[in-house]
């Protein structure tokens, strides 16, 4: 019980529950509670001989709204004859203010959260409830083009840091009354707003409930990014594989909602979570559905291939060149052997060296300011390329292997699936250097068993491969034309499977 209270508001311990009746006392209390913060604006006014105060946080409110619709209305449109404070309060509440969202506030807890999220408070003397006008308006980035998940064909917009903008972006995609947006506040100190979005009737109720209960169980001081939530609610904490999907593309999230998934928007980050997440989801891009199905299918197969290349290429190279020379075609063997003449390191060390160099370069490239970026790419080309070969440190074939691996790991539409591959690659390299192909196969078996053991919010991670669902294969490795995607994935949208009617296809049949 105490945990629950603590979670909802840390200020509880010191704050009295109800507002005082004297406006000065309220103001004094608020000022003390906020430690005389300089961005707290307090405007004392007299309305109809009653002492009032308007409070807001500078920078969080839209000053234009406060000025035109609140102050102006209060100062100019008050009743002329003297009325009681209660009448005045009710008049302001019900009639005077041309503001869309106006709420009564009776508790300090509520008052603080509203004040600090950009609402403007009106306190009246001798009245134990304040009025909170929604005047939220701060500088944000605006809806911009996505950086991390760009597409050729398809909407370019991306989520922003503002929760309301993000919910609006989803609403604009799905204009169905059954789209549900449930609010939540997580983070004792940050008081971060969370929205859980799903389409009622499509999403499995048990999954929605599970999402709610897992989110409610979180007790943390601050949530700065959806990654905080992800680590709390994911099914497999110790697996390198992500069991929560995230995207900053509204169309990808809307597509997930239409498949019966549940989205979680966190205020302050453009990355929106989507559950349940299956392995195949990470290999699919929303563009697969915008381009024609044939190229969509081809690209999906290409991604699966690059998944294998990115994971196994260096280890296979090590295994073949140090254990299974008989499996290399003779002319290739001669060429590889010629390249290795004079290379001082074993193939494993050579591969490790190059892979680490690449990981270092990659990390440097992400963090560096843009101005220095070109310097890194020049140095990187020297370290990973011709110069390393000419210096006799690595063989040219290894450079090609590492480069191919690196490029392949960038093919995935979702960045967080590239992460387990990056890490497991080293594991497989060690296995290959120790046991050759035998080690790789053992590792692969262990990997597949592990992946099959994973679940994401009740859905088997490897479905629809394991368990095999024939009906769901239409949108996994191949993408059927849209008129052929007649049903939603059966593991997620249990209630409402139908998607198209067969008569809807135009043209000749």
């Amino acid at each position: 019980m105490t945990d629950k209270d603590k979670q909802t508001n840390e200020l509880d311990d010191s704050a009295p529950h109800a507002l005082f009746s004297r406006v000065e006392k309220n103001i004094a209390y608020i000022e003390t509670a906020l430690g005389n913060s300089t961005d707290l604006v307090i405007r004392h006014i007299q309305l109809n001989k009653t002492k009032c105060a308007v409070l807001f946080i500078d920078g969080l409110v839209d000053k234009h709204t406060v000025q035109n619709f609140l102050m102006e209305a209060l100062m100019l449109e008050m009743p002329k004859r003297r009325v009681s404070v209660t009448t005045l309060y009710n008049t302001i509440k019900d009639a005077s203010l041309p503001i869309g969202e106006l709420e009564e506030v009776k508790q300090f807890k509520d008052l603080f959260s509203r004040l600090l999220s950009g609402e403007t408070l009106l306190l009246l003397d001798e009245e134990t409830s304040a009025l909170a006008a929604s005047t939220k308006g701060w500088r944000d980035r605006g809806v911009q083009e996505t950086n991390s998940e760009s597409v050729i064909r398809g909407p370019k917009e991306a989520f922003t840091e503002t929760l309301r903008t993000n919910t609006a972006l989803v609403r604009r995609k799905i204009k169905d009354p059954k789209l549900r947006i449930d609010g939540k506040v997580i983070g004792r100190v940050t008081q971060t707003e969370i929205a859980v979005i799903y389409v009622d009737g499509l999403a499995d109720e048990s999954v929605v409930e599970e999402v709610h209960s897992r989110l409610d169980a979180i007790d943390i001081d601050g949530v700065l990014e959806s990654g905080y939530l992800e680590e709390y609610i994911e099914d497999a904490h110790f697996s390198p594989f992500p069991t929560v999907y995230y995207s900053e593309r509204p169309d990808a999230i809307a597509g997930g909602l239409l498949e019966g998934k549940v989205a979680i928007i966190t205020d302050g980050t453009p990355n929106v979570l989507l559950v349940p997440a299956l392995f195949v989801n990470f290999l699919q891009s929303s563009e697969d559905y915008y381009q024609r199905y044939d190229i969509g299918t081809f690209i999906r197969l290409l991604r699966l291939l690059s998944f294998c290349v990115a994971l196994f290429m260096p280890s296979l190279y090590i295994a073949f060149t140090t254990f299974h020379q008989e499996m290399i075609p003779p002319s290739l063997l001669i060429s590889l052997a010629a390249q290795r003449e004079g290379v001082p390191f074993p193939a494993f060390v050579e591969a490790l060296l190059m892979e680490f160099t690449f990981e270092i370069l990659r990390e440097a490239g992400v963090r560096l300011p843009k101005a220095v970026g070109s310097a890194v790419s020049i140095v990187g080309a020297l370290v990973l390329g011709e110069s390393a070969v000419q210096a006799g440190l690595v063989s040219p074939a290894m450079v090609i292997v590492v480069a191919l691996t690196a490029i392949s790991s960038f093919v995935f539409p979702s960045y967080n699936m590239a992460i387990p591959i990056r890490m497991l690659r080293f594991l497989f390299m060690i296995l290959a250097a120790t046991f050759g192909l035998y080690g790789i196969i053992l590792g692969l078996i262990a990997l597949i068993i592990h992946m099959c053991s994973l679940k994401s919010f009740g859905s088997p991670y490897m479905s629809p491969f394991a368990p095999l669902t024939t009906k769901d294969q239409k949108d996994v490795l191949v993408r059927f034309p849209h008129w052929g995607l007649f049903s939603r994935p059966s593991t997620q949208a249990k209630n409402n499977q139908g998607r198209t009617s067969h008569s809807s296809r135009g043209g000749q049949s």
Partner: protein
Amino acid sequence: MRHPLAPHGYVKWTLVWVVMVLTLTGCWSSRELDELGVAVAIGVDKDEDDRYVLSVQIINPSEVASDAPTTRPPVTLYTTTGDTLFQAFRNMTTHSPRKVYVSQLRMVVLGPEIVNEGVTPALDLLYRNHEFRPTFFVTVARDASVSDILSTLTPYERIPAKKLMDSLIDTEENLGITKSVTIDNLIADVRSNGKEAVLPGILMEGDAATGTSTTNVEKVDAPTKLSIDGLSIFRGDQLVGWLKEEESQGYNYATGTVQSTIETFACDNPGTLSVEILRSNASMDAQLRSGKPTITIRVEVEGNVGEVDCVIDLSDDDKMKDINKKTEEVIEKKINAAINVTQEEYASDIFGFGNVIHRNHPAYWKQIKYDWKSHFSELEVKTDVKVKIRRKGKSTQPLQSEG
């Protein structure tokens, strides 16, 4: 209470196990590419003291796959001796800087001494050792020593062993005068009662001393050359003689291993006509008539008219039938020549007639099994060749004909 990050018991043990497995084994049996001496050809023979002489042709990778070749040869030949072949292999370490790696072996060349004495003892290692893959070809050095053949540099194809292998396959596929034999086929034939082995021969033309120097490949027409010869006949595991080219071809027709070849015969009018053989099939049957076996060889051949060097009207159906018949005669002649020479001169059943009798009349085979060699020489063999000429090429008339 357990800290949320503290591993479960099984996780702990798995980690311990994984770390032990990875650290305690080391990189066992791993070999880097630059530690391998990749052998492409092996020569086996015996010297005067009855010791095995082993010659190994090893690739010099940086010479073969280099864009800046030096004057060093692309391959190196090491020769050692030993009481057994395996010992000779291990003695190789005193000569070669790298351990010899034989999984990429292309070719084994057997020397004249060992084929006369019997090849079985030498084959055992080549078949038993796990590093040998049974895909290499076994050949016989004809009229030259093994080390002379293996130390001859070849123009155009830098690795001599690869040149020999490619020539062998090409000859087999396009001329049909030879037959590539892998180690497992050879062993099966040597061990079989009802079939004797054949092996292709390798011939060296020119001077051995010139062939071993890089000057050999600096000339447009290399003075010393390696070429593929016809088939050698074995009896048991010993070489007893050689087939001529036509006889080798006849042998291949009879066993159905001709893929493509050329048959030439004289026309009615002066001149010759060549037929390109494209497909051939052969089947053998054994009949027992009054206790005497007869073998029937049926050969079906398809081909095209390849080259017409006489006056003949190809649009005439009768002429085409005539061509069919003449081609049949030529092929039949070759087959019979091969059968005659093996029956009369060498008494070696390279066609596998014994196996045919074994399959068709097992009871009879049991009686004559141990006396097969004498029976073979008196065996009656019928050949039945059917030729179908499919196409006549781009012209129905020869160039000589007027009009």
